[in-house]
């Protein structure tokens, strides 16, 4: 039994942060107990790689049980997890919270977009007096980005461009992306005419030869997971080598709800409830790493109350749960006559976009009317048909027979979707706290979210929609019906981009932050946070690669402290 063994470190969570910490700490010779709230998950056996929609219930459409479609890898609901509610405060704007309950967490289904934060991203306050600066610079994290890219396998190699705040990876870090698909060649020309760069996407997919890894077969959607481990998942890339050290023990179905302290005020372990049996267990170790995801990490801290910390662990300054951020999401799709009747071509590709548009407006923020920016993720092509297929001809609700078949053949692959993913500036109206009344099935108090987008975000959303419409117009396309141009309505819901971060941020001291630059908490020196909760700002770049790099850097520091006997 886990409780009987002696561990150096307990890691709560098995996703990007937990998986990476376990990878490094076990390789450093530390004995690690990993506690995962969800069930065991084996991507090799469970991934539906080549199954077509006709084999799935309801042809694979989204349902409340499988909100991203039947074949999405997520176990246990995503937006609504059975027996584990959360609440949104009265008067708040909507907030939704995606949680899987499986080994590897969200890394099993994530979009595999692996962009580095840039130099400006770490010092946003210094640039425009908004938000907060990180206690580290790009240069501090750059070596860890290099190592992370080489470990997990990232495509997108290209000659260095030197674009502002859009880091080029050093030679040897990235593999080449698959060539642009037909629609990617097509849209690039419109952006070029507008003076906006289109560059290779950085995707966590093995597109070339990599030792110990299978190369992508350029066929199936990454969101299902990957049975051959050709993309990055904690369960295929980080946990197997960690297990191979003999230093890792994994306990699944273990929902941690409390960090336990000894009399000296140090963390002595954690307490969890087994989600299947309802039994409660306490386990001990010399140090504790929280990597349960920003929401759950904050919940554990806030529920860990003691006489020394009556408002929750590490929360003496009331900072836990604060500075909650997400990405700004917008999207417009359109149909393009110029793409009709293209000869059949295989657009499956490497799962991620092959190219994308990095934010280009750093010099024009005043003119645009918002601070910070967004990048554009663009999807399209002749992808495997779904129940959404009739959407390629909204103008035709009547044709049948040969006319219908001909129109579908002609229109197939002629729709492109443009999605903005942008930076949000932290504000005082966005945070989570413990709901005074609501509890989960096991009686553990749950999170209550508060959300309100700021004007910088809603103006940004309006700008993104305007940009998409201009691009669509230049390409001769017809936008989807009823495009919302009001940024306040076009913007995504809080949490909807599943980039919620920043509830236990890092900083310079215990007055401005919960943890230091290595995720070590100010209040309890052997308690660490190694997930997105530590983030100080929410750059437009998707956070997973940065969570991995920060976790590796923090785990390296933890291992050093452990060897020094400092924990």
């Amino acid at each position, binding site marked *: 039994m886990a409780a009987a063994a002696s561990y150096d470190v307990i890691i709560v969570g098995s996703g990007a942060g937990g998986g990476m910490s376990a990878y490094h700490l076990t390789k450093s010779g530390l004995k690690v107990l990993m506690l995962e709230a969800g069930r065991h998950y084996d991507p090799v*056996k469970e991934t*539906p790689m080549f*199954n*077509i*929609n*006709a*084999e799935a*219930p*309801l*042809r*694979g459409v989204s*349902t409340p*049980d*499988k909100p991203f479609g*039947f*074949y999405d*890898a997520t*176990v*246990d609901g995503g937006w609504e*997890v*059975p027996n584990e509610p959360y609440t949104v405060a009265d008067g708040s704007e909507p907030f939704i919270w995606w949680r899987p309950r499986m080994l590897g967490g969200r890394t099993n289904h994530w979009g595999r977009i692996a962009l580095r934060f840039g130099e400006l991203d770490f010092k946003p306050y210094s640039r425009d007096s908004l938000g907060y600066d990180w206690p580290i610079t790009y240069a501090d994290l750059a070596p860890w980005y290099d190592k992370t890219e080489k470990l997990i396998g990232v495509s997108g190699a290209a000659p260095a461009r030197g674009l502002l705040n859009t880091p080029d990876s050093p030679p040897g870090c990235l593999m080449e992306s*698959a*060539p*642009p*698909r*037909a629609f990617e*060649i*097509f849209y690039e*020309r419109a952006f070029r005419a507008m003076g906006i760069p289109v560059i290779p996407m950085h995707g966590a997919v093995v597109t070339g030869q990599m030792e110990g890894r299978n*190369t992508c*077969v*350029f*066929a*199936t959607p990454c969101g299902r997971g990957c049975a051959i481990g050709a993309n990055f998942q904690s369960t295929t890339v980080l946990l197997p080598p960690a297990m191979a050290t003999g230093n890792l023990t994994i306990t699944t179905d273990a929902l941690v709800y409390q960090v336990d302290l000894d009399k000296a005020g140090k963390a002595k372990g954690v307490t969890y409830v087994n989600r299947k049996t309802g039994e409660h267990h306490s386990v001990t170790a010399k140090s504790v790493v929280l990597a349960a995801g920003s929401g759950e990490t904050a919940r554990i801290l806030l529920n860990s109350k003691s006489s020394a910390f009556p408002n929750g662990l590490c929360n003496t300054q009331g900072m836990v749960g604060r500075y909650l951020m997400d990405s700004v999401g917008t999207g417009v799709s359109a149909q393009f006559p110029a*793409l009709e009747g*293209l*000869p*059949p*071509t*295989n657009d*499956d590709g*490497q799962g991620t976009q092959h190219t994308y548009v990095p934010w280009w407006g750093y010099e024009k923020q005043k003119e645009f009317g918002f601070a910070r920016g967004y990048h554009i993720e663009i999807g399209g092509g*002749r*992808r*495997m*048909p*779904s129940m959404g*297929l*009739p959407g390629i001809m909204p103008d035709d*609700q009547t044709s*049948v*027979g*040969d006319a*219908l*078949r001909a129109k*579908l*053949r002609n229109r*197939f692959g002629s729709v492109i979707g443009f999605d903005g993913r942008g930076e949000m500036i932290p504000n005082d109206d966005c945070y989570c706290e413990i709901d005074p009344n609501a509890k989960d099935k096991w009686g553990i108090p749950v999170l209550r979210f508060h959300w309100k987008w700021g004007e910088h975000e809603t103006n940004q959303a309006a700008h993104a929609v305007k940009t998409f419409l201009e691009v669509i117009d*230049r*390409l001769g396309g017809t936008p989807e019906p009823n495009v919302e141009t009001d940024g306040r309505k076009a913007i995504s819901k809080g949490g909807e981009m599943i980039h919620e971060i920043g509830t236990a941020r890092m900083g310079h001291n215990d007055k401005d932050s919960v943890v230091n630059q290595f995720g070590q908490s100010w209040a309890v020196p052997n308690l660490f946070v190694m997930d997105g909760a530590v983030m100080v700002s929410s750059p437009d770049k998707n956070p997973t690669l940065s969570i991995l790099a920060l976790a590796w850097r923090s785990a390296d520091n933890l291992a050093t402290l452990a060897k020094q006997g400092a924990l």
Partner: protein
Amino acid sequence: MSTKTPETGPEPYVSKIDRRTALTWIGVVGAATAAASAGVVVYGPKTGGASQAKGYGTDPKLNPPVKAPWPRLMSHDQLQTAAILADYILPATATAPSASSLGVPDFVDEWVSAPYPDQVKDRPLILDGLGLLGREVLKGDAAQRAKALAALPGSDFFKRFRALTIGAYYTTEAGFKDIGYIGNVARASDPGPSEEVKAVLERELQKLGL
């Protein structure tokens, strides 16, 4: 299906669902008598079926994918009508099969019988529509059938049924072939689009002044 003629009317639709699966649904709604008729798939009864039906849950088996577990609600007549309408929308051609031969009526049954909100919303529209249409197309002669079908386009029922038929049809391997989807095959590399595709694109881009 290929032998049907206007004079004799369409061949009866034979469900593509295997009997064992169908008996499972009947078991769910407790129709002991239906199970007694050996070798015959009986649709219904309806009592309690919809309200008791459960979805596949938040952790369904994906590989291989589970079958939709809920009992089916469509009657024999509704299935037959669905087959006639699905084949009006997508009849067989020289190179592609008919919608009914790909089991589209069974899919419509799976859809309208499902316990999820989107599908529950479609249920009365589809079932009522099939009921009304059935009176015209199941008993009348070929001319009456043709007239009843030709009168449908424009109605909400037709729009929805047609969308379901298109989706169901083109998510099959036969549908992939008909529409020109050539992916979902393992490849050693992705060479990108062919020179022919690039040439077409270039022509189109030039027309757009790009």
